[in-house]
Every structure is written in structure tokens, then in C-alpha cells.
């Protein structure tokens, strides 16, 4: 490892290192000439637009992976592009001269576009910048009228026009976007002056600690985290300070006068060192707090991409990474380092050589009680290494060292191994995502998986999920769902083939929503495929809305009914009601009885007229009859109205061949009319009495003739009439009339009821009058009713009926009845003897 530090460059006390990530796969003979270039943050893809301003011939838009592998390309057919940039979600933003912004995905598929307004269109876009805040991507425009327009979120475009810079003749020499409390500001340099533009005002600012003689700013750069700002002036002076413009961190005077092509901050999160990279045609110059900067000569034209923890340098043949060496790495690898990590690394090497020196080194670390630090350092340092061999040797050292630490928790070690495996896998040039450990941790595994999905690297994403043992729900099924959504867009394959392929792969994996996939298929215009996919969806509540969206309402209705979820059925029914004409709607309902009864329930309360139509449609005369009867008791209050409703009912009942119901209803009409006449006559409510109650009340009111008339008219059965009349008379206590009635003709109910009814009204005297006429078989009962035990016993004995005797016996309670008891017992024994 003697040469390990060969690519280390000291700047003051800090070391920087530049290493190759890839030999580029692409073939760019002309370098980046006549090219618009944009590379996404976090090891993102590279977009290239060649001949972007060539008049003859069309520009070509190409998108490459970070290793220069072509992902996609299209001939550019829209207008003149001024600027390219990437969003945080890896969409390509193309800003055109006319103020139209087009968004493409990494496969050059057009996603959407929006305009920056007529003012921008009129004045044209002069320059543009794409900037990122934590969760969103924004753009800033300098128009031909020398005004700035900012949209801080391209997903929800709200344009803000910034105030004008006073007395501005030409475009600012340079400008950049800064943030004040998440509000984007523009800092612009005009000659020697600097202006800060916020929503309302334009303020002239000076940079603290910058000499007034330092000249005019030619180039400025904001750090990746928008914390720092650097300005390069025409005197070769470089100012570096905070982006809030409150503090100067350091300055540097160079002998270069020409404006650099690009400037970018090269800092490591958590480190207190700062460095700025300036790039010219053949040189990258790194400056910081140290008196001397570092020169990196360039062989070919390049561009630099600022990253969280360094800068990427992309040329036509290589892709390099320049970053500050982390403290742990420095400690371990610095020449002649005696740091615990360094010693542990040595010890492990000696151990492999089976040399006893291993023990010496180990002992030395242990003596200082630094072994666990050493292990931790080696683990951490492994994460900063790009080459697997170095990672391995550091991890080997850590693994070796941790054997000698008591109760060492292997969690860190395991996590590091896992993370490195993932990083090494995505570093492969075919994948081409050169994320560093620092970036990866910031980005999180979830976002990385999303990016892999976006790149359609489904197998790799699946492998990672499996490797990390993610639950199906979080990992595998999400990725499979994405895969399936992509699959349904493959136009060349048949519906059956795709549906089957998807089902085969997805099966019943937990958390897969077939409806989402079907929805995507539907968006692509593949309705049949969508329906096939929906068959696999177990949740009806997800199937139904989509089926409706595809206008398959009959199928939706069937599914809804099958699900047993009435809410779903109602959803479909409402849809059909609005979409279908009434006839078709009713027809469909008739074919689905479950839906029909549900809809009827709804109509009963909300649309009674519809209910009638439904029955009509179905020729359901019986129900129509019932419907009219119901409404004769419901809404309609006037007698004429009620009669009319009932007449309708009679008609329907006749159609339904339900004579009984028709007759009963006709009777009711007759009764209603009678009742109304009565009500008018005697000023007593008769309406809504039943026939029985009507006649009963007539008798109570003494209108015997009328009662008699109704009895005949409605053919009231004799039995009922007798019961009714004697009850009413007894209630009225009209005993005379009762007796008269009893003698009018032979009773249809016998005479026991007379006794009963009198007793009910506690009239023993009257009751006794009828006993003689009670039939022999019921006479005992009658005597018992009036409480004449003696007589009851007599007649029971007379009948020689044991059951009757027992009945009498059971009533004998008091001592006074003893004689009766004896009498009966005697009679009983007599019967027995015989």
C-alpha cells in the first residue's frame, strides 16, 4: 500500500483526492462543443443536447448514465433550448427560448410542459438556472428584457417576477440563486456592483471583507447545500463566504484574470474545511484557506457536477470524482501514521503473513485502550473507499480487530458490509450510479430503489430488497407493481400474454394492487388488458371504480353485487342512473335483483315516484296496488284523494288478478265514504276505523239501524256481528237492548258469551238471566263464571262429567265450599263404583 496516497493532494493541512469512476462508454468526438450538458445531482444521469443551436439539422437529445451508457435519445423537434437541468425526481427540464418548459423522463419520454407566461415569451429567455431545495425543484429565468422570473416549484408553477435592477444596460455578468428562509433570491453582478433581488425590492449589497478594489464579479457559485457563496472577480480575486452574505470565510488572490468556465464548491458535510474548484479549458484549480491552491491539469474539455461531498468531473473519456479526504481515512493512510486504525490495518496484514508483529501492533493499540476506536475507524474508512479491494482490506482489519474487543456489537460492521455491497453493485458501469457512501446515506435506500425502478432496473432493485430482507409490502411488491405498470405499456405484446406474465410473476404477493396496474393499462388505452388484470384484484372496492371509468358498468355491477358490499352497488347504480337513459337503467336493474331491491329501498324514502315507474316497467301490478294503498295512508289526507288512490289500487289489483285484495280495497272505498258521511252527521271522528270498530261505534252511539245496514252491506259474518254487538251493548251497559237482541233470533255464538260479557262488566244479575239458555255442555262454565259453585256442582254431577267436576273442585278454596267439595267427591266415587 505504499502508493496508496499517490493520488492525494495536500492543500494546506487538508488532503484532496481525485480518482476515476469510469472510462466513459460514450463516443463524443467533438467533446462538448456545441452541446448543452446537464448532469443530475446524486450521481444522476447526464443529458446532452448536441448541435443545440445549429441551424441546419435538428438537435439531438441524448441521455446517458453516469458511465456514459446511452439510455435513450430523440431528435429534438421543439423550439430552441436555452438550458437543460434535472429535477430531484430525475426528470429532465428543458427550458426553451420562448419560455416553454418541457419535462421529459430519463427515457426521453415526454411527460408534460408548461409556459412561463406571455411576457417571457415576448421577451425570450436569455439565461436560465435550475435549482433545488430539499423537496422541490425550481427554475430562475433572465429574460431578454433583463428581468428575472422565478418559479420555486415546477410541480406547482407560480411565477414570481422580481423587481428590476435600476439603470441596467446589458445583462448581468453573472448571477445565481440564493435562499433566505426557503425563499429564493437572485444575486446578480452588474459591473462592480452586486444586487440582491427578493420579492419586493432590489438591494445593492457588498460582500463583507471584500476590498472595493477587488473588481467586478465574473463568476459566482453557491455550494450544494446553499450555505456558501463564492465570487470570482476580474482581478483574479476570489471571495468565499456564507450565502447569507454576512461573513467572509476566506479569500484568495490568483493570477488568473479570465472568467472560469465553471466554479463549484468541494466540501464534505461535517468537515470544517472549505474548497472551491474553478475550471478553465485545461485546468481545474482548487483553492481554500491555504495560501497555495492545487492545480489539476485537464487533458480534454470537461464539465464539473457539484455533489454533496465533492465534485464529479466528466470529460469525453473519463468520469472522475474529486473530494476531501475524510479524517479517518487520513489517519489510517497518512504516511507513518500511528493512529489506532492504521496500526490495526498493519496488524491484520502481519497476521495474514503469520508474523508475530501482528501481536505487537495489536498489543500497542490495546495498551492505549483504542481497539474499539480502531475497529470503528476501519469500518468507517471502508465506506469512503471506492475500490472494493481497499474496502475489503479495511473490513478485514476491522473484522480481525473486533475479535479482541469484548462484547463488540457487530451491527455497524454488518450494516457497512451490506451498504458497500449495494454501492458496489450500483457502481458497476452497466448500472452507472457512482453514489458515495455519504450521498447514499443522505439519499436513503428508498430513494435509491425508486431511482432503480425509474431506470427500469427491476431485477437489481428486487435483489436489493431481498438482500435487505424488506417486507414484501415495502419492497418487493412495490417494485413488482412498478414493473407491471411498465409491462402493460409494451404495445407489441398481446393482452393475454401480458396479463399472464404479470400474474405469474406477481401472484398473490402481499400488497400488490392489481387495480393500480389495471388503471395504468387503462391510461394506455388498453381496456381489455385492464379488465383481464382486474380479474386478479381481490378487492372489489378497487375493481369497481375502474370498471366504471372504463364504462363497463354491467361488469362493475356484477362485481359489486358479488362483493356483498351494498355501498359499491349503490355507487354503480348511481353511475348508471346518470349515464343510462331511464329505460335501459330500469332494464339493467331488473336483471340484477339485489341492486333492484337496494334501489327500491332508496326510492321509497327519496323518490317515491321512481318506485312507481319501476313497478310499472316490470308490470308488477300487485306491488303497484300496494303502492297506491300505501300512499292512500301516507301523503294524501283528503278523503277524495284517498279514494282516488284506492281506486287506482283496485285497478292494479284487478290487473294482477288478485280478487281478494281488489275486493278488500273496494270495501275500504265504500267504508271510507260511509265514514265520511257519518262524520259529517254525528261530528265524531269515524275515519280510519276498521269496519269492526265502525259498527261497534255505531252501536255505542245508538245507531242500530245504520249498524244493521253496514252488517248487511259488508256481509259481516254472523258470529262476528253477534260478538261485536253484545260487547258494544255491554260496554254501553244497555242491558235492555242486550236482552232484546238475545231474543231477536237464535244466537250465532251461543249464550255463554252473554254471560261472559255481563260478568266482564260485573253485572251478575244480568248474567244470570242468560244461564238458562246456555247449552248443556257449557253450563258448568257459565255457573262458574257467575261464581255460583253450588249450581255448577249440581250440573256437573248431573252430567256425570268428571272433568267438569274437577274444574269446580279447583275453584273451591274457602272453608265455606266444603259442602260442595264433599258433594262432588261423593258423586265422583259414585261414578267410580259404577
Amino acid at each position, binding site marked *: 500500500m505504499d502508493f496508496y496516497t499517490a493520488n492525494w493532494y495536500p492543500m494546506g493541512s487538508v488532503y484532496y483526492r481525485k480518482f476515476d469512476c469510469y472510462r466513459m462508454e460514450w463516443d463524443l468526438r467533438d467533446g462538448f462543443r456545441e452541446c448543452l450538458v446537464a448532469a443530475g445531482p446524486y450521481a444522476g444521469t447526464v443529458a446532452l443536447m448536441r448541435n443545440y443551436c445549429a441551424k441546419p439539422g435538428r438537435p439531438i437529445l441524448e441521455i446517458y448514465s453516469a458511465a456514459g451508457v446511452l439510455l435513450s435519445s430523440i431528435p429534438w423537434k421543439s423550439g430552441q433550448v436555452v438550458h437543460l437541468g434535472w429535477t430531484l425526481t430525475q426528470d429532465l427540464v428543458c427550458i426553451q427560448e420562448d419560455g416553454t418548459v418541457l419535462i421529459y423522463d430519463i427515457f426521453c419520454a415526454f411527460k408534460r410542459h408548461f409556459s412561463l407566461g406571455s411576457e417571457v415569451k415576448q421577451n425570450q429567455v436569455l439565461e436560465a438556472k435550475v435549482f433545488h431545495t430539499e423537496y422541490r425543484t425550481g427554475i430562475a429565468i433572465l429574460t431578454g428584457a433583463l428581468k428575472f422570473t422565478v418559479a420555486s416549484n415546477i410541480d406547482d408553477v407560480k411565477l414570481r417576477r422580481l423587481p428590476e435592477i435600476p439603470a441596467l444596460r446589458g445583462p448581468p455578468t453573472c448571477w445565481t440563486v440564493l435562499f433566505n428562509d426557503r425563499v429564493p433570491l437572485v444575486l446578480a453582478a452588474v459591473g462592480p456592483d452586486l444586487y440582491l433581488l427578493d420579492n419586493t425590492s432590489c438591494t445593492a449589497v457588498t460582500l463583507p471583507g471584500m476590498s472595493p478594489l477587488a473588481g467586478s464579479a465574473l463568476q459566482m457559485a453557491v455550494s450544494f447545500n446553499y450555505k456558501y457563496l463564492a465570487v470570482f472577480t476580474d482581478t483574479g480575486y476570489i471571495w468565499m463566504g456564507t450565502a447569507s452574505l454576512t461573513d467572509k470565510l476566506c479569500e484568495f488572490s490568483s493570477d488568473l484574470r479570465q472568467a472560469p468556465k465553471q466554479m463549484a464548491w468541494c466540501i464534505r458535510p461535517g468537515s470544517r474545511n472549505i474548497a472551491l474548484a474553478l475550471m478553465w479549458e485545461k485546468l481545474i484549480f482548487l483553492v481554500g484557506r491555504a495560501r497555495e491552491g492545487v492545480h489539476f491539469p485537464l487533458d480534454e474539455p470537461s464539465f464539473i457536477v457539484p455533489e454533496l461531498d465533492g465534485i464529479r468531473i466528466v470529460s469525453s473519456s473519463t468520469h472522475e470524482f474529486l473530494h476531501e479526504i475524510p479524517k479517518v481515512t487520513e489517519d489510517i493512510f497518512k504516511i507513518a501514521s500511528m493512529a489506532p486504525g492504521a496500526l490495526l490495518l498493519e496488524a491484520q496484514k502481519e497476521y495474514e503473513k503469520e508474523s508475530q508483529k501482528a501481536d505487537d501492533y495489536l498489543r500497542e493499540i490495546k495498551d492505549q485502550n483504542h481497539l474499539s476506536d480502531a475497529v470503528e475507524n476501519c469500518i468507517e474508512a471502508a465506506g469512503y473507499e471506492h475500490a472494493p479491494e481497499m474496502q475489503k482490506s479495511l473490513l478485514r482489519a476491522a473484522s480481525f480487530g473486533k475479535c479482541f474487543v469484548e462484547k463488540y456489537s457487530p451491527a455497524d460492521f454488518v450494516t457497512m458490509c451490506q451498504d458497500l455491497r449495494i454501492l458496489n453493485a450500483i457502481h458497476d458501469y452497466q448500472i452507472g450510479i457512482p453514489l458515495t457512501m455519504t450521498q447514499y446515506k443522505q439519499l436513503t435506500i428508498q430513494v435509491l430503489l425508486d431511482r432503480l425502478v425509474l431506470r427500469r432496473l427491476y431485477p437489481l432493485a428486487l435483489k436489493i430488497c431481498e438482500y435487505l430482507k424488506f417486507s414484501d409490502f415495502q419492497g418487493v411488491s412495490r417494485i413488482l407493481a412498478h414493473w407491471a405498470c411498465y409491462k402493460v405499456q409494451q404495445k407489441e405484446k398481446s393482452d393475454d400474454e401480458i396479463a399472464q406474465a404479470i400474474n405469474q410473476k406477481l401472484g398473490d404477493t402481499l400488497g400488490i394492487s392489481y387495480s393500480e396496474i389495471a388503471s395504468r393499462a387503462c391510461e394506455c388505452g388498453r381496456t381489455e388488458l385492464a379488465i383481464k388484470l382486474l380479474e386478479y384484484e381481490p378487492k372489489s372496492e378497487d375493481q369497481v371504480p375502474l370498471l366504471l371509468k372504463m364504462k363497463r358498468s354491467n361488469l362493475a355491477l356484477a362485481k359489486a353485487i358479488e362483493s356483498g358490499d351494498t355501498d359499491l352497488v349503490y355507487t354503480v347504480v348511481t353511475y348508471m342512473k346518470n349515464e343510462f337513459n331511464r329505460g335501459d337503467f330500469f332494464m339493467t336493474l331488473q336483471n340484477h335483483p339485489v341492486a333492484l331491491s*337496494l334501489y327500491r329501498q332508496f326510492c321509497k324514502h327519496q323518490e317515491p315516484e321512481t318506485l312507481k315507474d319501476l313497478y310499472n316497467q316490470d308490470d308488477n301490478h300487485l306491488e303497484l296496488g300496494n303502492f297506491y294503498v300505501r300512499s292512500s295512508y301516507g301523503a294524501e289526507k283528503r278523503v277524495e284523494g284517498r279514494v282516488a288512490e284506492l281506486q287506482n289500487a283496485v285497478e292494479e289489483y284487478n290487473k294482477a288478478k288478485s280478487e281478494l285484495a281488489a275486493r*278488500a280495497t273496494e270495501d275500504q272505498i265504500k267504508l271510507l265514504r260511509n265514514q265520511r258521511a257519518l262524520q259529517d252527521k254525528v261530528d265524531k271522528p269515524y275515519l280510519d276505523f*276498521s269496519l269492526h270498530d265502525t259498527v261497534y261505534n255505531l252501536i255505542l252511539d245508538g245507531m242500530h239501524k245504520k249498524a244493521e245496514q253496514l252488517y248487511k252491506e259488508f256481509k259481516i259474518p254472523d258470529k262476528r256481528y253477534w260478538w261485536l254487538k253484545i260487547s258494544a251493548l255491554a260496554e254501553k251497559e244497555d242491558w235492555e237492548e242486550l236482552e232484546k237482541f238475545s231474543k231477536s233470533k237464535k244466537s250465532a255464538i251461543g249464550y255463554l258469551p252473554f254471560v261472559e260479557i255481563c260478568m266482564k262488566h260485573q253485572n251478575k244479575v244480568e248474567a244470570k238471566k242468560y244461564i238458562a239458555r246456555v247449552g248443556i255442555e257449557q253450563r258448568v262454565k257459565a255457573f262458574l263464571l257467575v261464581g255460583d259453585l253450588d249450581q255448577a256442582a249440581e250440573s256437573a254431577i248431573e252430567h256425570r262429567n268428571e272433568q267438569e267436576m274437577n274444574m269446580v273442585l279447583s275453584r273451591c278454596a274457602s272453608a265455606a265450599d266444603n259442602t260442595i267439595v264433599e258433594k262432588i267427591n261423593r258423586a265422583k266415587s259414585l261414578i267410580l263404583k259404577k
Partner: protein
Amino acid sequence: MASERIDSPELPDFTILKRLARDQLIYILEQLPGKKDLFIEPDLMSPLDRIANVSILKQHEVDKLYKLEDKPIYSNCDQLCFLIRPRIKHVKFIANLVRSDKASARNRKYKIIFSPQKFYTCDMVLEQEGIFGDVTCDEWSFYLLPLDDDIISMELPEFYRDYFLEGDQRWVGTVAKALHLLNSIFGPVSKTYGIGRCSKMVFDLWRDLLEDDEHDQKDRRSDLGLVFMIDRDVDYVTPMCSQVVYEGLVDDIFRIKCGSVEFGPEVTSCDKSIKVLLNSQDKVFNEIRNEHFSNVFSFLSQKARNLQSQYDKRQGMDIRQMKTFVAQELKGLKQEHRLLSLHIGACESIMKKKTKQDFQELMKTEHSLLEGFEIRESISFIEEHINRQVSPIESLRLLCLLSITEYGLITKDYRSLKTQYLQSYGPEHLLTFSNLKRTGLLTEQAPGETLTAVENKMSKLVTDKAAGKLTDAFSSLAKKSNFRGIGKKLGLIPRVDGEYDLKTPKDMAYIFSGAYIPLSCKLMEQVLQRKGWTGLEEVTRLLNGNEFAEQLCDRNSGSQRTIVAVFLGGCTFSEISALRFLGKEAGYKFIFLTTSITNGARMLESMMETKS
């Protein structure tokens, strides 16, 4: 009565269900901070009372409580909260209220809490009435109310009418969710038996729910063993019989509402009514609830004597003994005394009504109907019953019992009895008869139809149904009871020589004075005994099929002797008593899960069209 078998399992503690419901309600109320008036629909008042009392509601800033009635409201509160069942009627009422507030430029916040869930129709109505954006909605998932240690009610009496009459399946999912809730707290259930279309649908939905969260069902000790689901229309005979077991009688006569009953002055022997909670906490009640009424009175007088002797212990106590007596026993004795006198009062009141000759004859008629003897006499009894206007519901109940036990009424009888009924109780009952016909409770034999013809038609309909062509409504139209055949196959009518011993009964028939073993309970007994439907094919064919037996989880984690009896469409106290008896005999523990407690009167009332 037989004492508990030693090997019968313990009942799980269902009070947690109440706590869950209460916590959720409080959470919902707190979502609307500040003072608010709460309008409660009448049907939810009693259940709510069992969950959260007024002081709890007040603690969560409920200012005034109102009953939601169909009349204008007078509230000055700026926030109105409505606690309702998801019915269109109520939603429309609220909509009118909101609109009239709007018209008078009154600005208030409205929140509707649907219990146990909201239906899509509610949203539809809110939208049609144009107030969708003016109200916020919430769901109070209060599915299960434990009425007693072994009875859980969903308190959804409308389930019966909605499903069995209107063919409206909206509550089916609700029951499935309720079962799922029960299963997730006390389960898992290992096996489910069932009979009836509704049971099958509930089971299918429930199984879907189970599959959705299968992964967290493992390795739990279960308090539940088996589930047995039954549709009310499988057994219409039982609820149509007069109840003679004490708890059932109290329900028939005084109407037990949500586990409590209001005894009027005739029982309390003072001038005001007393509300009594009837459950196993009531020591006196607990001992007589399952007894045949003829035993209750003697039991109570025995109890009274015991009580007296305990009081008498006081004599000859010294001061210290007296002190402990007052401190420890007196309160309990007093409580028992109070309850005892109440139940004695109730008994007297029942006796007064039941010892009349009418009642004896009513029982005689019911028994002959069940046994199928002296049908003509029974018919004339019913006719007289109608003519004398004894009671519209009783008359109807007898008519239904006649119809179900006799494969429907022959045309002549049907017409004459129906005409009589209409004359007696009013022609609006035309609709009642139409409804009864649709549910199959009271049907007319098609002319010339013999039993075999009916059976042939039945089996044809069953196959048609399999093809999905027949609706519930239609199938019940054609539904003819096969009570005689089933009764014979299952031995529902016990043949006893001499008097049936009601004091120490030997089968479940005691709940109907030894005349009849309830079909629903007999079915459960048979299936549990046979561990399935094998051997009952003939019976299930006569019952229209739709029986099922499904294994849900392989491990027999819980006791197989704890059985959840699920009644879809309501269950009667007689059935509960019968199964409690079976449980004691066979060492099962039954838990009753029902959509509501029902009886003949409630079922028939729900068939009537209210005049509104």
C-alpha cells in the same frame, strides 16, 4: 335444574367491547372541540346508555342532550352533533335543519356520527339535498353491545325487515365486520357451521376480512371455539310460539329493551315505574330466568322464606355481631329483598294475565298446531280471536303459526281469515299480509297443490337459485314451510307418556311446556353432536339447503366447547334459555350474538307498514 358441568369452559369477559366503544365515542366527540348539543336517535338511546352515561358525555363538552324526533329543534348551540343509525329518514331530517339554518343565515357546525357505519346512500342524500359540504361525518364503529355475560346484541332490529322482507343486503357486511371484531379480540375461531343464505354471505365476507390480516392471527390463545350461524327464516316456528320461560315471558309482556325492563305500577305496587336491569348480576333473576313459569312462583316464595330467616338472624346478636351484620350483609339482603319483591310483583301481574281461560285455550291451540292435531278447531279458535279483536298481533301470530306448521293456508281459509282480519283491524293490513306472504310467514297454498308438488317445485327453485336467477324476494315468495317433515326427522315434538316434568326437564322442550323443541336449537345440537351436517341431508333439503361447515384455522387453540351462536334476524329469549340448558347438559358454553333480541310481536310489528 341441572348444575354446571365441571368441564365446561369459562366465558370470556366481554366488557372490553364496551370500553372500546366508549373510548372511540369520546375520541369522536373530542374531534369537535368546544360546547356542543348532542341529538340522539331514539333507537340508540338505550344502547348509548349502556356505554356512556350523561356525565361522561358532559365531561366531553356535550352541553345538552336531545332525542332526535321529527319536529323542529330549539338549540342555541353553535355546534350540533347528531348520533344516528345510517337511515335516509334521519339524514333528510338533518338536511332540512341545515337548510333552514342557512335560510335564516345561522352559522353552525354540524357533525353526524353514524353508528355503526355510514352507508353510501347517506352521502347520496346529503349530496342531493345540497348540504354535503356543510356537515362533517364520522363513524362510531359500535357493533357489539354485551347485554349480559353471554349475550351480545348488535341492536339492529331493522335487520330482520331489511334483509328478509326488502331483500336489502346492506347489513350483511356490518355483521361480517362485527364477527371480525369479535374474532380479532377473543378469537381465532377454529370452525364455522351455518345454515341460510344470509349466513353464507356473512361468512364469505368475514372470511375475506380474515384473509386480509391473516398474518397477525397466529399463535394466540383463543377464547372462542366454534361459530354457528343461522338465518331467522330457517326457523320461523319458534318465535311464533308464546314464551313460557320466565325471561321470555317478561319480554313478551313487559318488553325487555336493551337488557332492561320497565315495571309499571301494577308490578311495583307503588305509583311509579321502576327500570330494572335484567342480567346475571341480578341474583334473583339469574336463578329464575331460564325456568318454566310454573316453577317460578314456588321458587320465589322459597327464596322469600330464606331471606326472612336471614333477617331473623339479627335476633340474639350482640352489638359487635350486629355491627358486622349491618356492615356486610344487610346491604346485600336489602338489595335482594328489593329485587325479590319486584319479581314477585311481576309474577303476580303475569299470573293475572295468564291464568285466564283464554290463555289456557291459546296454549292448547298452539300445542295442537305444533302437533298437527285438531286443525279445524284451531282455525275456529283463531277466527273467534280475530272476531273478538283480542289483539291484532296475537291474532296475526296465530295465523302465522298456522301457516308455517301447515305448509300455508288452503285458499278458502286464507281468504276468509284475511277478510275477517281486515274487517277487525283495518284494511291497511292488506300491506301487512302482502309483506307476510313475501317473507313466507303467512302464505296461501296454490290451489290443487299437494305436498309433493310443493316439494318438487321447491327443489326446482333451489337449482334455479344456484344459477343465480332467483332473487331472495322471489325465493321467499315460493318458500313453503316443511315443518311437519322436519319435525318428524328431528323429533321436535316429544312423545311423552303422562305429564312432562317441568321441574327437572330432560330436554329443551321444557321451554315450551314440553310440547316442542325449538328447531333452531335442535339443529345446533345435532350439528355439534355430529361435528357437521352429515346425516342431516334430508333435513337441510327440507330447509332449502344453504348449509355449510368450514374450517378456519387448523390449530385447536381454544376450547371447542365455547360456541358462538349467531342469529341473523334476531333470537328469542326462549332459544337462549334452551341453549343454556343444552350447554349445561352437554358441557358447552354458548355465547349469543344476535342482530337483536326478538319475539313474535316484534317480528310481526316490523312487517306492518307504519302510517306516516
